[in-house]
């Protein structure tokens, strides 16, 4: 303590004080960050660790836990519906995310054009879907993708000479309908993120390229896209993590959990059904653990991938 005071060059009077400036600062620092860590311990860390414990127990929500060994994990891994839910989640992820990136980048480039009029309006309009709740989106789209041939999507199809589709009962009908909901709600958000990335590119790069005679398409290929790479990685990362958590859209598309068909079953829906419909908290937790492992692998792959891209630049 004496040394500390001396190092900080405090006056001799302060040196002997027990409640020093340094201690005050340490105290304030820990006090200010403690709410986050306390709440996270209760509602984040503990539940997660407890999920790992529950995954090896048999419990129906009442009574005591019974050790069940690996039987929960085995039950989930042997359940064809679980594998179907994994397959669906991956497919929804690809169909919902990839078109988003393909549409959002050109859209952001258009919205960034200096000569564009009504810029504020277009940005606002394209961002609006993000403001809508997932529940509302799912309800509206379940009407748009109605089974009947009078459903608005089927009417549109009939105008261009196509047969009506059973959006709720066929493998690809379901996939397209639910991916469209995801696409519609998130494409504007991602466009704005790409727009932010574009605005970070120094304009003198384009000026220099223009003077050197580079055509717009060359500028796009050699300046815009390479410099946008970190943002593309960021968006892909968030979208893939988000894709694994798909839940609300299929639930509301079929009105109630018992109505969800296997074409639309996702991993979180499977977990929720096991827990809150079947009261099988052990198998539900085993599903959570498996989901945790999947997301961890995806995050690590993403990190490695983005590190490599960083090195190239």
């Amino acid at each position, binding site marked *: 303590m004496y040394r500390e005071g001396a190092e900080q060059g405090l006056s001799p009077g302060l040196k002997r004080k027990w409640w020093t*400036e340094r201690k*005050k*600062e*340490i105290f*304030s*620092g*820990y006090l*200010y*960050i403690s*709410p*986050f*860590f306390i*709440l996270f311990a*209760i*509602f*984040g860390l*503990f*539940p*997660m660790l*407890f*999920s790992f414990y529950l995954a090896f127990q048999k419990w129906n929500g009442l009574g005591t836990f019974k050790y069940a060994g690996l039987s929960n994990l085995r039950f989930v891994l042997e359940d064809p519906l679980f594998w179907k839910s994994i397959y669906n989640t991956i497919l929804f992820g690809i169909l919902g995310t990839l078109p988003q990136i393909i549409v959002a980048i050109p859209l952001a480039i258009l919205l960034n054009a200096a000569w564009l009029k009504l810029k504020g309006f*277009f940005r*606002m*309009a394209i961002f*609006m*879907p993000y*403001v*809508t*709740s*997932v*529940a*509302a989106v799912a*309800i*509206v789209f379940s*009407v748009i993708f*109605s089974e*009947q041939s009078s459903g*608005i999507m089927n009417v549109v199809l009939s105008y261009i000479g196509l047969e009506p589709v059973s959006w709720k009962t066929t493998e690809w009908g379901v996939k397209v309908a639910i991916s469209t909901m995801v696409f*519609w709600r998130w494409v504007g958000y991602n466009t*704005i*993120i790409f*727009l*932010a990335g574009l605005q970070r590119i120094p*304009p003198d790069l384009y000026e220099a390229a*223009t*003077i050197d005679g580079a055509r717009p398409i060359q500028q796009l290929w050699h300046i815009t896209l390479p410099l946008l790479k970190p943002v593309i990685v*960021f968006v892909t990362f968030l979208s893939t*993590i988000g894709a694994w*958590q798909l839940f609300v859209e299929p639930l509301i598309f079929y*009105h109630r959990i018992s109505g969800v068909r296997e074409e639309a079953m996702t991993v*979180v829906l499977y*977990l*929720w059904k096991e*827990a809150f419909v079947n009261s099988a*908290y052990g198998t539900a937790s085993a599903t*959570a*653990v498996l*989901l945790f492992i999947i*997301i961890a692998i995806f*995050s690590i792959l993403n990190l490695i991938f983005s590190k490599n891209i960083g090195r190239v630049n």
Partner: protein
Amino acid sequence: MQQTVPTHKKGFSLSRFMIYVSLWIGALISLFPFYWMFVIGTNTADKVNETPPALLPGSEMVRNFMKVMEQVDFFSALANTFITASVTTIGVLFLCSLAGFAFAKLNFPGKNIWFGLLLVTMMVPTQLGLIPSYMIITELGWLNDLKALIVPGLVNAFGVFWMRQYISDAIPDDVFDSAKIDGCSHFRIYWNIVVPTILPAFSTLGIITFMFMWNDFLWPVTVLTDNSIQTLQVAIRSLNDVRFTDYGMVLSGTFWATVPLVIVFLLFNKWFISGLTQGSIK
């Protein structure tokens, strides 16, 4: 901007025309479902099943909303949602900025380790602890209580991270040091110097939090199991849950549950989009 190299002549330009057309199509696709909600919400249920479907607002606005009120207590759900979102937002702004201030400007042992831990927690999806969280809420007796929605959301890693970045950029170290020499306590520095400086960051984080809480679904539907207490999202789901779905009624409820947030968004639109573009990637 690039006047030195004119790439096109003044007047009609086909490529620009095509760009405007595609942007208008994009805007229409984005806005159509809002309009459609209103159209169906003001028509009778039969109109949904007509070919071609109704495309103009009808005269059933009041009657459909009365039907919504028969199914759910819309205004108490609105009040619950508003209270939950507001209290959480105030908590997030205060606690996240306080923690962000500590990480940005104060020195204490282990600071970097704690900050690293905070970043790690951002990558963990909360759904993984859904069942034990539900058990904790049951143990606390908070099932069907707004506390179950508010308390876990009072502070989050994203907010702390975001506030730390903003505070370390916005407040120079010497301002902080001289305030300390003047004998200001840390909380006085936070309250008198930090808070007035970071008001723009408050507005963006505030809107993000408010919007997230307003629209949240999975957690409310898990812990609000009783129909007597609902948020708007839970309420519109229970409208949709009725066996013989009257879409005029369902979309009327959905529309009026969406309107308040759209108004908030349109009021703060400028701040929100610019704040998001500044804060999201750093």
